[in-house]
């Protein structure tokens, strides 16, 4: 029996894919039958012990799960408040949590007999994870990536190519993650009969937000057990960065009924909320409002005419104008809180964690670390703060060198 995953399907969504008023399926009619087929295949797979065992086996022997929890002793001591623990998704194969979902969906694609995979990527982490899972399972992989992101994430572009994937540059719109998703959907709508869309975050039309959450929920399921083993009790606060929000929802989900555990999602504050150059859908109500993008109703950064706004973040993985619908719902129901961290704060946190703990976090994860650094000093010494260290920073070295050099 597998002890590494426990797929939670509790607390939504409803049958139409809604978390409260968020979610749904706002896609061209051509895709609706494919989404129905996917939903059915997903439920069948999850109910099949053989599928669960295969996934658990690969998580254990390929991904390297369970990933550990690390007590950040020196960081905690320096901040003088809460005891900080890190869930080490950076130690998962390919260096980020993205492999959890990519492997799950690739196994599902294989089960459905779909040989051709399309995926989008922002930072390149999901693209690398998809290319990896496809190489492992012998599937054909095409990854759409915006030209802006290709320029700032070169090592990941090369990784994907080494892994046998085709990287397709996207020159439309803002040339970042949002446009890569547009192109992946256009590909899917064209080749829908034989193609599986391996969406990388907890967004898009139903069943993706649910499916991605469930494949990522292994993070929280492990962390909940590990923190009790290591610290003797549940944490007081969880902190995770939120782009689309898959690492955050993956951590939060197992704690959803632990009402004493606070959940904090951290958006990209970019150059500051007032600068308008950010990706803070929740934290800047002047541009972040409920709307529909990429098939789901959630908070969307948009202008007065409902056009989707360009975003900015130093981290490509958080540079996205919408957010997974379950996060919008968790926020509305006040089960989770959301805040923003600027580029500069994230850069500083990256350096602090590197020096105090010997761990170079991804710039995305550095947003969560920055929030922990901000929050810990005011918390009691016997309190526990659990940070999802969703990825490692190797891919960001060029960006960091450039940013620190400029400073």
């Amino acid at each position, binding site marked *: 029996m597998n002890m590494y995953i426990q797929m939670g399907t509790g607390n939504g969504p409803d049958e139409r894919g809604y978390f409260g008023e968020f979610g749904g399926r*706002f896609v*061209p*009619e*051509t895709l*609706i*039958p*494919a989404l129905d087929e996917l939903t059915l295949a997903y439920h069948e797979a999850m109910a099949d012990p053989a599928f669960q065992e295969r996934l658990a086996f690969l998580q254990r022997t390929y991904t390297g799960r369970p990933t550990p929890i690390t007590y950040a002793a020196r960081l905690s001591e320096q901040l003088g408040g809460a005891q900080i623990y890190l869930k080490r998704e950076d130690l998962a194969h390919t260096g980020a949590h993205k492999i959890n979902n990519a492997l799950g969906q690739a196994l599902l694609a294989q089960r459905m007999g779909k040989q051709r995979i399309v995926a989008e990527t922002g930072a390149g982490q999901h693209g690398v994870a998809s290319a990896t899972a496809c190489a492992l399972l012998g599937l054909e992989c095409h990854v759409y990536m915006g030209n802006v992101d290709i320029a700032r994430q070169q090592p990941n572009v090369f990784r994907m190519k080494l892994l046998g994937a085709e990287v397709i540059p996207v020159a439309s*719109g803002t040339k970042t993650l949002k446009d890569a998703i547009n192109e992946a959907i256009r590909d899917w*709508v064209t080749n829908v009969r034989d193609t599986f869309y391996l969406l990388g975050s907890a967004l898009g039309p139903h069943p993706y937000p649910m499916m991605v959450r469930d494949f990522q929920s292994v993070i929280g399921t492990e962390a909940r057990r590990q923190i009790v083993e290591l610290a003797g009790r549940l944490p007081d606060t969880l902190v995770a960065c939120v782009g689309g929000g898959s690492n955050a929802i993956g951590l939060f989900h197992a704690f959803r009924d632990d009402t004493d555990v606070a959940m904090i999602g951290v958006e990209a504050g970019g150059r500051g909320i007032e600068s308008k150059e950010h990706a803070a859908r929740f934290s800047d109500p002047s541009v972040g409002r409920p709307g529909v993008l990429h098939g789901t109703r959630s908070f969307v950064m948009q202008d007065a005419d409902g*056009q989707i706004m360009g975003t900015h973040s130093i981290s490509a993985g958080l540079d996205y104008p919408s957010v997974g619908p379950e996060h919008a719902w968790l926020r509305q129901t006040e089960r989770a809180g959301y805040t923003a961290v600027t580029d500069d704060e994230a850069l500083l946190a990256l350096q602090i964690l590197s020096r105090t703990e010997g761990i170079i976090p991804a710039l995305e994860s550095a947003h969560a670390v920055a929030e922990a650094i901000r929050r810990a000093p005011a918390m009691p010494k016997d309190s526990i703060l659990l940070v999802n260290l969703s990825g490692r920073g190797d891919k960001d070295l060029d960006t960091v060198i450039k940013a620190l050099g400029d400073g």
Partner: protein
Amino acid sequence: MTTRTSTGVSAIEAMFARAASEGRSAFLPYFPIGWPTVAGSLEAIEGMAAAGADGFEIGMPFSDPLADGPVIQAATQKALENGVTVRGCIEAVRDLRGRGVLQPMLLMGYLNPLLAYGPQQFISDAKDAGVDGIIIPDLPPDEGEAWVNLCAQANLALVFFLAPTSTPARINLVTDQATGFIYVVSLTGVTGARSALPDELEAFLAGVKLAAGDLPLVLGFGIGTPEQAQRINRLTSGFIVGSALVRAGKDGAAPVIALAAEIAAAIRNR
């Protein structure tokens, strides 16, 4: 005909009846407001109205048009750069009515800008300006209840789509919810002219027709030449030509009107 004798769903029904009485399909050009300029798009639509078009799908630009191919993406991007808004598109229809365009006009746009405008206000303002129907490519009927009700109250058509992937259950749902006509996507894919239409098109259409009953079918996606128009003429109540006209529009209204005239003539040649 110098004044509009009917509006909304009735105007669209009259359009199909007239085309049918002439033994042909209705020809509905798609053209976006603001491409290559606002004035240029109005000139093109006005000219096509005089050149034999039966009705119009008027495009409203969106930053993320995920059902559209590269030609319409680029054109609507330019339209956004030209400052075109939802309100601007409604006003463009009013302007076209003022210029004497009598044919049915349906506004086509993605959902988010319409939500930002406010659905009720949008329907009310569109109706007031002379719009006859609404097409929202990222709104399947499952999510469309509020829109179905608003459009029904205003007697505006609300067009839904069917695709070659549609199952019998989907076909029944869409035929149940759509008004005006059903937009039948000829192939799996995004908008854009294709060199060839799928071989299985006739068989697919026959199945949809059976379920649709009296509701007209309009074929779209991939139709771009007079020859293709001739081939699909009378297969469905109407057809839409988009990307080919939009591509012609980069050099001004004259080539758009000329292509529309050729297509209009092709379906009248028997």
